[in-house]
């Protein structure tokens, strides 16, 4: 890809000056030569990827190919894994996320994450969503906090189903509702980027369809990166798709192109079901 030939720019502290100017237009996320190591084992090799704003990028690939690892390095969740090391440069909004002056807590506030298994806190639905705004001090008053919670639930398409039991435990909801609650929790802190790590793998088809609708709706305002094992899902929800294999970013491009006319043989093999 042509980005590799571009001179490597370090930008520490002055994020505004170095806005990325790649061929894809306004990139929300840019990664350059990202390598991830778990102890001595290398899981990702020199990933260079630009992700445009207000769109859905799906990461596909066989199990263990490093797509989740890449996703987790975007909000530095890998920091919580002992022995994990990330090299290379990742920029969100042109700002290097490994900048020592950057606060990782703030980063995770700006980059929301939804996990494979729905993981609501064992608290009420309200407290689940209010937790993020509370710890970041986003709410000016109690009524403002309530407003944030209601808006987030509405955006996550859950308000109609739970508005009568907003103070009941979030763990009492069904799997699909729990996952939408987790999405509502993620958007409650007003992130710019939402990372989704196989958000539908634990859900039935109907709940999956609802989440996909929600993703379609959310992409109007957010940049969404979704890891998925379902190629149909990638084809349905995403505008661009990246294919990972054995820790290497094999191919990236508009979703339609990847699925109809892949350049790499490995991509072709994978999407036609030869392996994976």
């Amino acid at each position, binding site marked *: 890809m042509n980005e590799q030939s571009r001179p490597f720019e370090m930008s520490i502290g002055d994020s505004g000056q170095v806005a990325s100017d790649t061929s894809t237009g306004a990139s929300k996320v840019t990664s350059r030569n990202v390598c991830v190591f778990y102890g001595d084992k290398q899981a990702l090799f020199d990933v260079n990827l630009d992700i445009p704003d207000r769109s859905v990028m799906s990461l596909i690939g066989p199990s263990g190919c490093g797509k989740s690892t890449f996703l987790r390095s975007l909000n530095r*969740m890998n920091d919580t894994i002992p022995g994990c090391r990330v090299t290379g440069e990742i920029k969100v909004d042109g700002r290097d996320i490994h900048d020592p002056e950057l606060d990782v807590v703030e980063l*995770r*506030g700006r980059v929301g994450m939804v*996990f494979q298994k729905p*993981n609501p806190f064992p608290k009420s639905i309200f407290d689940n969503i209010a937790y993020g705004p509370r710890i*970041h001090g986003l709410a000016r008053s109690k009524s403002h906090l309530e407003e944030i919670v209601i808006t987030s639930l509405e955006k996550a398409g859950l308000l109609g189903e739970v508005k009568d039991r907003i103070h009941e435990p979030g763990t009492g909801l069904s799997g699909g509702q729990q996952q939408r609650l987790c999405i509502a929790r993620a958007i409650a*802190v007003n992130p710019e980027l939402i990372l989704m790590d196989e958000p539908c793998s634990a859900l039935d088809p109907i709940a999956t369809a609802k989440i996909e609708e929600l993703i379609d709706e959310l992409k109007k305002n957010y940049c969404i990166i979704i890891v998925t094992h379902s190629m149909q899902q990638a084809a349905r929800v995403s505008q661009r798709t990246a294919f990972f294999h054995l820790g290497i970013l094999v191919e990236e491009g508009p979703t339609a192109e990847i699925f109809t006319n892949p350049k790499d043989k490995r991509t072709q093999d994978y999407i036609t079901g030869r392996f994976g």
Partner: protein
Amino acid sequence: MSDTTAQGGELSSPHDWGSAAAKRRVRRRYAADRRLQAYGLGAIGLAVLLLGVLFASLIFSGYVAFTTTKVALNIYLDPSLIDSSNPGAANYRKLTRGAFFAYFPDVTSASEKRELGKILSSGAPYVVRDYVVEHPDEIGKEVKIYVPLSDPYDQLNKGVIPREIDALTSDRIALFKILTKRGVIHVDAGKGTVLVDVYVNPGDIPDGNLEAGDYQRMVAEAFRAFFPHALTLTYEELLAEDAAEALKAHVIANPGDVGKTIQFKVPLSAHYDSLARTGEAKMRNPRFASARDFEWFDSLKERGVLSSPFTWELFVNSDSRFPELAGLAGALTGSFFALLVCFLLSFPVGIATALYLEEFAPKNRFSQLIEVNINNLAAVPSVVFGLLGLAVFLNIFGLPRSAPLVGGMVLSLMTLPTIIVATRAALKAVPPSIREAAYGVGASKHQVMMHHVLPLAMPGILTGTIIGLAQALGETAPLLLIGMNAFIPSIENMGLLQPATALPTQIFSWADSPERGFVSRTSAAILVLLAFLVTMNAIAVYVRQRIERKW
């Protein structure tokens, strides 16, 4: 494919699942399964049996301590004897004994009164004093107060000690049985005698004066010749005191026997006489001075003035030299203070240590070393912690001896490893998805710990803490070493720095006391301790079940 099966068939015949050998194998397998089950059942049965025996013996010997024999006294609180401005200072001994002696108007002599007074507990006057101090408005009235009997009468009333005990030990009875077999024991005219060959030695009769002969010596010689091996049985013990007199009477009656060996029936001493006639020898229980003691006691009983109410003193009173008045209040207070200190020290320190080790510590040799040592700490004998407390807390820091503060500090050394291990297990049990969720919305490490991980781990932590405290409650050795077995007759001045005792050390001191009443008091105290332990463990189980409901 077909080739390989055919080949396999040639090489080894296919396994016949219905053959006799196969059936035998199946039978053996079943038998082994059943054996394993039987071993397990046997082990459980043995454990339950031993536990049952322990509890049964404790309850059997301890239940009597839950009632105390009391006598109702009608005491006229004479205003001329009790100063109402200072009611504690009157001569309550005189008042109490006076009221008691009123039951026995025929007892007048001082020595008899002294004997009679022993029926009342020495602590009875204090019971009356405490009553008057509490009800000063009743001075001048006649009141009915129940005061405890002294230990021997309390035990007599409960049937713990008998009125009569065996006068002879079993080895004495065995020796006597040997004599009976030899046919030398006779019962003549209601008197037990032993037939002995006596040589009436003329050398022992000076100048032929039959009156002045040393018949004692003759009997002793005869006895020695007759029972050369009965070394443990002396003739003074076996033979009546008037044995020599009987021989003298015989020789005077038959002067011709002097110089001869005669067969003489020597009378037996009282206990052996009774054994020869009735087959058993009883004597009055030496705890009671005379048979009159029983008469007095029986007369009290017949009059219905004795009662056996529940022993509230066991929980209300503190320690006492008199078992009928001794209670556990001081020990319970001391244990409470020590456990409080232990909890306040070990709970925060334990959680902080576990949190650091589990969540923050880098995985290197040093943290591994600490980890191994914490696990080892749990295996250190408690007496070692006691010595440590003695050497460090008392000698170096100069903290007071016997104080619950030091006791709690020593116990917290023992509780810490339990709490740390339990807390780490509870922290590990919090699902990682919760941490990820919290990190994912931008919580800092501190917020993840304090808002999510610790609250979710808290039931597990509390379970470990309660079990650790229950262990500490029953710990004796370290408390003994720092001297926390003080004699505490009142809980009024107890505090963190004052001398104190604890439940297990109280049990230890009571078990060491000679009075009969302390035997049942000890068992009762053990039952109280066990009740506390069972309660604490039940709370721990309840808390643990709540955590399981949550996930």
